[in-house]
């Protein structure tokens, strides 16, 4: 069976879903960042799949952009996590409830 577009899209969707669930449900800030990376990569996969289907390079070019953004975001995100950890000595997102109204 040759993987068709549909397969790639489904895989991408599943990956995206896994990433989203990870963001909601994981109890570790770094794991949440990891899940965000998964979501980004799922998006990358979608772009490349479509690029391959239509025979253009556009999908891969966009992946460049996405990866750059992901890297920057990871840097900033980890910096935030470090700062937060220094403050509260915990990586559990539920520990940070200062915004509670």
């Amino acid at each position, binding site marked *: 069976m040759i993987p068709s577009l549909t397969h790639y899209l489904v895989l991408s969707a599943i990956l995206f879903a896994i990433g*989203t669930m990870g*963001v*909601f*449900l994981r109890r570790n800030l770094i794991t949440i960042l990891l899940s965000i990376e998964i979501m980004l990569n799922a998006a990358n996969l979608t772009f490349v799949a479509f690029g391959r289907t239509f025979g253009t390079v556009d999908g891969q070019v966009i992946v460049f952009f996405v990866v750059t953004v992901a890297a920057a975001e990871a840097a900033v995100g980890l910096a935030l996590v470090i700062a937060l950890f220094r403050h509260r000595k915990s990586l559990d*997102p*539920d520990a*940070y*409830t*200062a*915004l*509670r*109204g």
Partner: protein
Amino acid sequence: MLQYIPLLPFAGYLVNLAFGRRVSKAVSAWVACLAMAGAFAFSLAAVLALLQRPLEARAIEQLVFHWIVSGDLDVPLAFRLDPLSAVMVLVVSGIGFLIHVYSAAYMHEEVPSEYARYFSYLNLFASFMLVLVLGSTFLVMFVGWEGVGLCSYLLIGFWYRKKSASDAGKKAFIVNRIGDYGFLLGMLGLFAAFGTLDFQKIAQVIGPMAPETVFGPLSLIALLLFVGAAGKSAQIPLHVWLPDAMEGPTPVSALIHAATMVTAGVYMIGRNAVLFGHAPHVLLVVGIIGAATALFAATIGLVQNDIKRVLAYSTVSQLGYMFLAMGVGAYAAGIFHLYTHAFFKALLFLGAGAVIHALAGEQDMRRMGGLRRDLPITFWTFLIATLAIAGVPGLSGFFSKDEILYRVWSSGHPWLWLIGTITSFLTAIYMFRVVFLTFFGSRREMEMDAPGPGHPGAAAAPGTPPKTGGPQDHMGLQHQGAHLHDAPPLMAIPLLLLAIGAVVAGYVGVPGALGGANRIEAFLEPSFTVARQAEGVRPRSEDRGPTGEALGLGTRPEGRGATAGHQAPAGQPGSEDPGSTELNLMALATAIALAGMALSAVLFLTRRQAAEALARTFAPVHRLLLGKYYVDEAYDAVIVQPLVTGSERGLWKGVDAGVIDGAVNGVGRLVGGASGALRQLQTGSIRAYAASLFLGVVLVLAYLVWR
């Protein structure tokens, strides 16, 4: 020139208001008294100028400025001096001046700022009263009317730190206001009907009309105006403020509540004689209420123990006589009585003031006695005034009261005449009671806590004097010997002058039956009839009845039956020789006055136990009279308490706190509740925020995709 008459006292008010506390008491008094003297001088000059004019043109008009010019309403600030206002203006300024002089001595224990405040109010009052009597339109008169009501409030509540005084001031003002409401409605009606508020113009328009036989618009207007008069002049049912007004200083009682302000109602009816003459039903009401009030107040005065209260009820009673006179169309007689009454009533009050002053604030007659030896001037002038009010021949009250009673009889109201005569008898009794209790016998200091016969006892009982005679601490002190001197010169001279007036003032109205010319009636007549030029030629002789009085109407009634018979018709009922009727009535009245004097002497001079036994035998009646027929209590129960309860529970707690505050607070609570609900979203949990972010993105995308 007329505007200076009210202007000078007003200037005196301003001066004392501005500088009073910084100058000495003497200066305040001089300013005030000079202002009044000036007003009197101008009044005299104006009246003399008036007298130069021929009888048909007895009016001086003066326009000060155009006050209101709005559409049809043209009300100038204008003064008009005619015979009626001439009498009033002389009474107000002359007697006012004497009372100002008296006050200078009476109030000498006040601090300078209070002293000046007193004189400023007194001058303001005089100014407003003069505006009232000189006004040529209803509105100008109303300015004065309201102004004297205000000054009455200010002066009654002069010692405002005393609760009973400030309560009395409020009561006077509020009851007056009720009357003023009727007065305003009457004015509105007049304007609606005739498009003008000028007295002359209204009289000229109404004059040619026929008197109303049913209760029509003129009657309604007249009735409403009478409500105002009843409020101002303390007639039933709006009489309740006058006895309480005795909380004010005694000269105030003399000026405002005896000689001038309370007579404003009588003056107003006299001013509108043509209007009232065309509303015979209302005139009958006026007469009946006048007679009823006269009798009612006389019975109450019979048993009161506070000397000022007796005089207050006496004033109400005598005002009833004046209204009775107006009610039978004898306008000149009513004004004549107003004029003589001003003299002897002011004298009575000032004399009472001298007594109270000498006794350091004592006002209860049960604790007086034997004062004629210590206060001779006061005694003799008081006696003269009492003889005058009782109607003893030779003094002024005799002529005016007799004129009224004769006119009531001859206009066909025997029952009203009877009430008036009985009242006369009672007047003699209770006035001489005052004389005997105060000046004769010996000083009774013992009956401090023993209640009078039939008296329920205790401080809260009706009839107990409020002890308001002195300014600061004259609360029934017992150091009677300390102050017991007769009136000082500044108080004695007004007493003497008023006493002279009480004797001779009546001689301008000696009736024809006694050989006089009844000059005051002739003098006043032009004020009560429509000006000649408005209705064509009507020689005055046609209007005169056989006794020589004018009819006071613009037109002759169709027939005697049509107008309920109380305009003096051309033929008196059953008296071919009216002179002899008058003489008979006079003799009867004299006999009654003397009988009253004699009875009073027996009861209160020689055999006091008889009076007390009488009171004990008729204890319920005595209690009823002492309690003033419980009218105040009735008003309190029927009107005041429901209003207070309704306001407190209905309007305050119900509407204001419940509805309005409820709405405002409810909005607040609503906002609070809503935000409390929305606050649930702010969990502080990062994951929840992430989830909601995600949800939002999904929704937006869904919208975009399925658009």
